[in-house]
């Protein structure tokens, strides 16, 4: 049984790496049939697979198309597992509200960051594109989030990030805020008072972990 599980975890990780959606779903169901805990399927099959995807993406070994099909495979498996996982299993590393800011309808970068954060144990609530400050704050309150993640592709919309940061600070809300997107720089993030900036999805995971530590220390 243990060897079978171990082999299946390995196959599941490989299926995620290769973006094989049907195989990922089949292996997830097979493990559940064997009585494997959903949390172990996540921790020992899906997440190790996505970790490899993240490293290969960071190192320019694979590119966005491969990452997207891996994310799709993982998402299909998570759709089966999530109803079976406890709340703490899902939000183990923390809860992040992520969205593309008001006026901006671009979401590839945001989706990849969301997927990488999920595969690193965060609960990610994706509020989509064209997201206003009220949506960020309402969702954050409902979900008990610790971090807000904002994305923008346009120079016309990046300024809206400051609106969200200002509102969070003015209302003395505890959330840590991280930003990213093609026109965003570290300097811009500092100017608007964000807590963190990430140049890509891999950096976003590291930054989210850092901000979670800061959040815990502050509270």
């Amino acid at each position, binding site marked *: 049984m243990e060897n079978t599980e171990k082999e299946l975890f390995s196959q599941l990780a490989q299926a995620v790496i290769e973006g094989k959606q049907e195989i990922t779903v089949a292996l997830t169901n097979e493990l559940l049939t064997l009585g494997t805990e959903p949390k172990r399927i996540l921790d020992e099959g899906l997440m190790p697979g996505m970790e490899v995807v993240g490293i290969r993406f960071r190192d*320019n070994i694979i590119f966005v198309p491969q990452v997207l099909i891996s994310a799709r495979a993982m998402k299909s498996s998570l759709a089966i597992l999530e109803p079976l996982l406890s709340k703490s299993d899902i939000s183990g590393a923390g809860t992040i509200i992520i969205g593309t800011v008001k006026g901006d309808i671009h979401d*590839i970068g945001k989706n990849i960051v969301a997927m990488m954060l999920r595969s690193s144990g965060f609960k990610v609530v994706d509020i989509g594109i064209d997201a206003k400050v009220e949506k960020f704050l309402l969702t954050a309150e409902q979900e008990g989030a610790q971090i807000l993640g904002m994305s923008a592709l346009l120079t016309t919309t990046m300024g809206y990030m400051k609106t969200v940061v200002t509102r969070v600070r003015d209302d003395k809300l505890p959330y840590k805020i991280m930003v990213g997107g093609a026109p965003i720089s570290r300097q811009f993030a500092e100017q608007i008072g964000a807590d963190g900036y990430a140049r890509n999805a891999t950096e976003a995971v590291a930054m989210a972990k850092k901000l979670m530590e800061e959040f815990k220390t502050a509270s």
Partner: protein
Amino acid sequence: MNGKDRIARHLNLGISDRTPVMCQLSIGHYFLHSGIDPVEIWFESGAFAEALVNMADRYSFDGVLINLPGRSDVYKNSVKEIQRSHDEIKVIWKNGHYTILPFDDNPHYYTPAGERIFPTFDDIDPEQLYYVEPWDVTEVKFPFFWGFDEHREKSDFFPDYHFDTIRKVKSLAGNRLSVHSEVFSPWSQFLELLNYENALMAIMDDPIKVKVILSQLTEGTIDLAKKQALEGVDAILISSAFAGAGLISRDQYNEFVLPYEKRIISEVRQTSDVPVYTHTCGSIGDRLDLMLETGTRGIDTLDPPPLGTVDLAEAKQFLSGKVFIKGNIDPVNTLLYGSREDIISDVTRRIQTGKPGGGYILSSACSVAPHTPPEHIMLLAELAEQHGKY
């Protein structure tokens, strides 16, 4: 020497009296700064042509890029109502759909439910594709038709009004400005058709079908480019925005971009002397050699870090004598947010790097952002006068 002659020299890898200047302005910049109503700019060929020429003159550019298709006045018959608020204009159509025109950004067309419509990959029958115009009044459709109901055969696919903006710009300034038209690369059309993410996954799911689709779109692109050449443009830009390393690998570029752009350029060359050049945003520093293989006459944008990966000195050394180059000024950190001193320093350095031997057009990498202060853009021509003399 006027702008038309100045740019012509550099398109042919020569020198002129001074470094030419020509930037692509974002649509939002025209909305904010041209003094012409956004509804007219977006929906009317004549108004857009006037905006292009007026702004080129205001910034002392040597050329203009016509980056919207010509429009038919028939759109007016489909308007139900136009609502204006402090930050956007909403054009409600008789079919219940609507277009939102922000005052500072590209408009988009929505269903009554507030959604944009894209076909799925499975929906696509490649045989029914020819050209996808993302900036049509009603954006992408499958099978594609123009506006609200104008279905056309492949043998006569591009309506005559499609070329009206070119004609108008040429009549306004064709004798003194270099007039460039735009076609979308098959790869860009494919990504726009499926809304990026699904297109990128499709190349992993069914690369053979994707290649058939790209081949079909190549035929329409060749047709359009040849027709633009017949209108007398001075150059044709292939807009290939999504072909950088931010999205796809070199191998994927080799497979899904290069052969199709190569064919377009080769076909246009067989019937016309009009130079065809390539605009690819973002990180292209790792694939300049592949872009050369397409047979392109020039490479546009050359985004510098942090937006892209191109060092102008390295690119100049590699590309000099092979193709003309255009771009490399950071449109965000320099032109939009930089101080006057930052701009003078950055732009002067680029002129000094790009100018030697010619074949260099001073330009922003990618388009000038909507809120870029006009006085920042005016500095480009001033600096070209000061430091760009041959």
